[in-house]
């Protein structure tokens, strides 16, 4: 089981709820993924509108836990206020903390991220920081009170997959007891499988499922990939070798000459 701030979660796949062709497809994708956690956001409501009510009713009907985000925030002040509004609205102290530092790459502003994480932890939040794969930033986030780390493996929505497996391996090696979730950059089930094989605890996806030709089928494919990668890691994989090793026993081979 995945342990996040003391909560036991059966699935190691977290799913975003944006960009699906329809609410019905979103609901089916969530079910097909088997996820126990979906990410949600807060946005301005229009006068007379009830757009949020419909979406929220749908999410509540799915029986999953929600992880609100601070997507789009560029400053500590914005992120902290958004987190407080999320807690009031969704009635959870979980927050996926995003503080964006670059408009083009959507790379987190890691300095502001650490500061916001410290403030929110002191305010009683359980912070899930969207961060880079930088080891020292990870240390600072843990010192700030985070008990989970969510490094990207490539820019959000890029579908590039893990561009720096060394950095991800390094994080796993340095923080063997900290839940590590790859958040952002996954494009294919094989990407998810590969980061799970590195020993990551879970994967958070959105675009790769929502923008697939068949989001429901892709959600199921990712569920299998995440599970396969995790089981492979647990089973301790063979390391690559620079020479051939016959798998069939040589001793006892018939001699026909």
């Amino acid at each position, binding site marked *: 089981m995945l342990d996040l701030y003391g909560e036991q979660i059966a699935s190691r796949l977290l799913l975003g709820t*944006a960009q699906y062709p329809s609410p019905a497809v979103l609901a089916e994708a969530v079910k097909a993924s088997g996820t126990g956690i979906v990410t949600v*956001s807060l946005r301005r409501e229009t006068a007379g509108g009830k757009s949020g009510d419909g979406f929220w009713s749908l999410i509540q009907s799915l029986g999953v836990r929600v992880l609100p985000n601070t997507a789009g925030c560029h400053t500590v002040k914005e992120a902290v*206020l958004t987190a407080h*509004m999320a807690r009031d609205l969704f009635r959870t102290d979980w927050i996926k903390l995003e503080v964006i530092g670059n408009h083009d790459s959507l790379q987190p502003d890691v300095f502001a991220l650490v500061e916001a994480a410290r403030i929110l932890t002191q305010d009683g939040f359980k912070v899930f920081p969207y961060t880079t794969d930088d080891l020292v930033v990870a240390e600072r986030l843990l010192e700030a009170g985070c008990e989970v780390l969510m490094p990207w493996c490539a820019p959000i929505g890029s579908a590039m997959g893990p561009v720096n497996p060394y950095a991800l391996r390094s994080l796993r090696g340095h923080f063997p007891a900290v839940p590590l979730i790859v958040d952002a950059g996954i494009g294919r089930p094989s990407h998810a499988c590969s980061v799970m094989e590195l020993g990551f605890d879970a994967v958070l996806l959105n675009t790769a499922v929502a923008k697939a030709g068949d989001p429901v089928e892709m959600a199921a494919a990712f569920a299998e990939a995440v599970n396969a990668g995790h089981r492979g890691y647990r089973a301790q994989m063979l390391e690559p070798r620079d020479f051939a090793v016959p798998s069939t026993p040589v001793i006892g081979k018939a001699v026909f000459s």
Partner: protein
Amino acid sequence: MRLIINGEPREVTAQGLGEVLAELEFTGDWLATAVNSQLVPAAERAGFVLSDGDRVEILTPKQGG
């Protein structure tokens, strides 16, 4: 009284935040509010008195990644 509601200027007659939401027909059940960049929890909206020029943010659950 003139308020800035989600970035747009609006004239209202009500004084309390809860009443202003009703007057402007923010009728959804799931809303989060902030005034001048400070959270006003749902439980405190009814008794929260607004002032001319206040900036009110009204947010609701949306899809997110």
